[in-house]
C-alpha cells in the first residue's frame, strides 16, 4: 500500500511540475515573449548569485559535521608528512576554488542580459594568457616537488632492522605470517596450499618454515616505534592492504610480492585515549574489489609495546606445530578465541 502511495505521489509531483512548465509557455504567449524572458533572466541571475553564499554556508556546515569524524592523527611519520602535504594542497586548491567559483557566479549576476549593455569584443590577450599559463605551472611544480619528496620517503627501502611480516590476501580474509624465532620466513609454493593444514602453501622441506607463525584472524601485531616491513601478496585475486590510520595502501597481487614499510608511533591503547573511543582499533581494509565478500575483508593492527608484543609472541604456536598435533601437544586456546571475532565480519 505504501508503495502505491509513494508511486502515486511521485507521479502527481511530476504532473504538477509538468503543468507548471506548460503553463509558463502559455504565459509567454499571453504576456509577450520579450517581457517574460527578461523577467526569467533576472530571476535566474539572482538565483545564481544566491548559490555562492549558499554554497559557502553548505561547505561550512559540512565541515562542522565532519570535523570530529575524520581520522585521528597519523600513526606513523610518513603519515604525518602526508597530512601536512594534504593540508597544503587543500590550501592551494581551496584558494583557486573559492576565487574561480566566486568570479563565475558574480559574473553571471553582474553581466546578466540587459538592453543597455553592449558587450566588449575581447577575443584574446597574450599577456593574460601567459599569466594564467605560468601561475598554474609554477603551483604544480611546487606540489610535484613536495609530492615526490614524500613519495620517495614512503617508497624508499625499509631500514635493515625492520621486522619483516608477510600478509597474504585471500577471499575473504587476511593471513599474516610471522618469521618466528629464526627471524626468517621460509619458502612458499602456491601448489602446496591446502585449506585444511597449509593455508599459505609453506614448503615443509624448508626448515625456516618450522617456526613460522600464521595468524588467520587477520591480526597484525607490531611493536611501537620499531619499523615494520610488510611483504604483501595474494592467493587468488587482487586485494589491497589499506591502512587508513597510517595513510598507506598497497595492492596484493597474485604472483607478485609488493612491499610497504612504516614505523608505527602510537600504540592502540594510546590511540584509544586520543580518540576517546574505547573500541578504537587500527583496521586493515581491502581496497581492491575482490568479490562478493570484499566489504567484509577486515584485518586489524595491534600496535603494542615491546613487552606486550613479546608476551603475545610467546603465547603463539608455530603453524607447523598447530597442524601436526603429534609434534607438540596443542596449546590452542589463544588461537580459538580471536577466530570467533573474525566470524562476526566475515561473509556467511
Amino acid at each position: 500500500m505504501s508503495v502505491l502511495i509513494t508511486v502515486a505521489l511521485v507521479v502527481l509531483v511530476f504532473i504538477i511540475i509538468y503543468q507548471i512548465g506548460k503553463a509558463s509557455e502559455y504565459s509567454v504567449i499571453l504576456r509577450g515573449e520579450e517581457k517574460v524572458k527578461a523577467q526569467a533572466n533576472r530571476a535566474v541571475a539572482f538565483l545564481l548569485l544566491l548559490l555562492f553564499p549558499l554554497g559557502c554556508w553548505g561547505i561550512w556546515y559540512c565541515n562542522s559535521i565532519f570535523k570530529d569524524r575524520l581520522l585521528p592523527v597519523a600513526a606513523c611519520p610518513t603519515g604525518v608528512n602526508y597530512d601536512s602535504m594534504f593540508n597544503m594542497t587543500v590550501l592551494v586548491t581551496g584558494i583557486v576554488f573559492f576565487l574561480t567559483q566566486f568570479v563565475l557566479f558574480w559574473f553571471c549576476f553582474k553581466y546578466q542580459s540587459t538592453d543597455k549593455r553592449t558587450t566588449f569584443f575581447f577575443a584574446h590577450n597574450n599577456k593574460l594568457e601567459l599569466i594564467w599559463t605560468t601561475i598554474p605551472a609554477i603551483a604544480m611544480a611546487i606540489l610535484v616537488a613536495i609530492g615526490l619528496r614524500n613519495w620517495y620517503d614512503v617508497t624508499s627501502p625499509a631500514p635493515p632492522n625492520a621486522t619483516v611480516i608477510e600478509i597474504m590476501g585471500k577471499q575473504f580474509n587476511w593471513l599474516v605470517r610471522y618469521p618466528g624465532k629464526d627471524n626468517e620466513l621460509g619458502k612458499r609454493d602456491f601448489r602446496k596450499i591446502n585449506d585444511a593444514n597449509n593455508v599459505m602453501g609453506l614448503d615443509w622441506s624448508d626448515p625456516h618454515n618450522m617456526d613460522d607463525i600464521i595468524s588467520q584472524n587477520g591480526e597484525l601485531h607490531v611493536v611501537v616505534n620499531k619499523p615494520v616491513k610488510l611483504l604483501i601478496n595474494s592467493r587468488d585475486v587482487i586485494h589491497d592492504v589499506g591502512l587508513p590510520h597510517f595513510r598507506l595502501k598497497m595492492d596484493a597481487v597474485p604472483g607478485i610480492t609488493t612491499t610497504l614499510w612504516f614505523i608505527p608511533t602510537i600504540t592502540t591503547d594510546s590511540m584509544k585515549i586520543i580518540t576517546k573511543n574505547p573500541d578504537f582499533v587500527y583496521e586493515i581494509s581491502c581496497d581492491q574489489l575482490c568479490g562478493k565478500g570484499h566489504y567484509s575483508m577486515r584485518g586489524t593492527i595491534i600496535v603494542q609495546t615491546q613487552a606486550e608484543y613479546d608476551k603475545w609472541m610467546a603465547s603463539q604456536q608455530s603453524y607447523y606445530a598447530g597442524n601436526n598435533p603429534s609434534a607438540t601437544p596443542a596449546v590452542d586456546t589463544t588461537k580459538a578465541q580471536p577466530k570467533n571475532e573474525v566470524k562476526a565480519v566475515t561473509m556467511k
Partner: protein
Amino acid sequence: MNNEEIIIEGPNVAHGAESATDHHGHEHHEQHFIWKYIFSQDHKVIGRQFLVTGIIWAIIGGLFSVFFRLQLGFPDSTFPIMEKFLGDWAKGGKLTPEFYYALITMHGTILVFFVLTAGLSGTFANILIPFQVGARDMASPFMNMLSYWFFFAASICMFTSLFVETGPASGGWTTYPPLSALKEASLGSGVGMDLWLLGMALFVVSSLLGGLNYITTILNMRTKGMTMTRLPLTVWALLFTAVLGVLSFPVLFSGVVLLIFDRNFGTSFYLSEIFIGGKALPHIGGSAILYQHLFWFLGHPEVYIIMLPGMGMASEVLSTNSRKPIFGYFAMIISLVGITLLAFVVWAHHMFVTGMSPFLGSIFVLLTLLIAVPSAVKVFNWLTTIWRGNIRFNPAMLFALGFVSLFISGGLTGIFLGNSALDIHLHDTYFVVAHFHIVMGVSAFFGMFAGTYHWFPKMFGRFMNNTLGYIHFFITFIGAYLIFWPMHYEGIAGMPRRYYDYSAWESFKHFQGVNAFISIVAIIVFFAQLLFVVNFFTSIWRGRKMTTLNPWGSTTLEWTTPINPGHGNWVGEIPEVYRWPYDYKDDGHGNDFIPQTTPLRPGEEEH
C-alpha cells in the same frame, strides 16, 4: 570544395541539392520508413538514434544507482519494490552482495561507455560535424550507420547479460583479472562476464567506425573557406575526441581479447600462482598488472573522450549566450592539443599502489599534474568569455555554466589524486568516487545537457520547455554538490569504495547518517532527470515550434540550414565561409553577431 563532389549517392539517399531545386522532382521518391529512420545513413538520424539509445541507457544506469544507494544508505531496511524489479537478486527487498557488485559494475560500464561515450560523442559528433564544417553528410554514411548498429549490438549484448542466471559482470567497470578471469572467483565472472567482453569488443568496433569517420569528415569535407582555424571549438573538441578514441580503443580491444583467451582457452596472460576454489591453477608467469596497463591505456584517454565534447559544447554555448567571442580561440585549441597528448602518457596514475616502480610513478605524477595547466587555461578563458558579456540564461547556458563550476571542482580534486604521495592514502576511497563523478560524470552530463537544450531545435524543429529546463538545472546542480561534496570527506577518512556494508567497521560505521543523506539526494536527483526525459520526449512532438532559422543568434553554419533539413542539409549550394565562428560584434545593421557566411566588410580585418 565543389558542391557536386559531396552529394551522397546511393539508393537510400535523397538527392539533397537536386531535389531542392525541384528540377528533378520526379526523381525524388519518398524513402521507406526503414531506410529513413531505422537503417538510415543520414547523420542527423544516426545522431538522434545515438541520443535516444543513450537516454534509455542513462535511465537504466541511473536506476541501478538508485538501487545500490538504497543499500548503502539504509543497509538495515528492506525495500520490497526492489524485489519487483530484481527478483531473486533482492529477495525480501534486500540486495544480495553479489548483485550489489553487479549493479555497481553495470552502472559504471553503462554510464562511462554507453551513455557518455556513445550517447555523447555519438550524438553530437554526428549531428554537429557535418553541419558545422559545411558537409552534406559524413565521409562514409554507410560506415556511420554501421557504427550505430554495432553500438546497438553491443547494447543488446550488455542488456542480455542483465538477465543471465549468474548475473551480469560484477568485477567493477574496470574488470580486473584474476577476479574477472576466473569463474570460481565470483558469480559475475561466469556467462555475464563473457557477454560483457563481447559487448565491449562490439563497442570498440562501433567506436572506431565512428571515430575514423569523424576525423575524415573534419579533415576532408569542410566547405569552401572553412579553414581549420575557422572551425567552431565544438568541431575541434570532437576531432580530438575521435583521435583519442581511434588510438586508444584498440588497446582496450587487445586487453579484452587476451582476457577472453585467459578465460576460455587456458592461456596465462594475466594469471599466475593462483589457488582458488580449493585447487591450485596451472597458470604461471602471467601478470595481473598487464591488464591494468592495457585497460588504463584506454581508460585514461577515455576520461577525455568523455570530457572533450562537453568542453567544446560549453565553449560554443557560453560564447553564443554571452554574445561575446570565446576568449583565446587559439589558446583553447592548443590546450585541447595539450590535453590530448598528455592523455596518452598519464594512464599509470591509476596504478600508483600496484607496486609499480617508484621512479616510474614519479614520472607519471609529473605528467599528470601537467594536465592541470591546459585545464586551468580553459577555465580562465571561459570565465573571461562571460566577463562583460550580455548573458542570456536559457537552460543550455545554465548547464554550460554548471559545467564550468563542476569542472573546476572536480579538476581541483584531481590534483590530490594525481600526486602519488596523496594517492597512496586516497586511492580507491570515496574521494576518488567523488572526484570522477563530479568531473567526468556530472560535468560531462552537464555538457551533454547544454548541447541537447541548445541543439534540440536543430534536431527536432521544436524547443524544449524552458521552465522545466530551469527546474531540471537547479535540482541537478545543487543535488550534484550535495551528493558528491560529503563523499570527499568520507574518502579523506579512508572509507573504501565498492563496499556493500560498513556497519562492521569501527573506522567507517559512523558515516551511516551521511550515507543515508547522500542516498536520499541521489534518488531525488534521479527523478529530476526523469523530468528531463519527459521534457525531451514530449517536446519532440508537442514542443513550441521553431519559427526562425537561427533562434539563438548564432554564427555557425548549422543555423543556415532549413528548419527541418532533409538529407543533404542545405537546399542548393553549401554556403561559403568567410570568417571565424565567434564574430559576436555589431554587424552595422543592429545585430550583435555576424554569421560565418557573411563576407568580410571592406576594411574589416579577420580575427
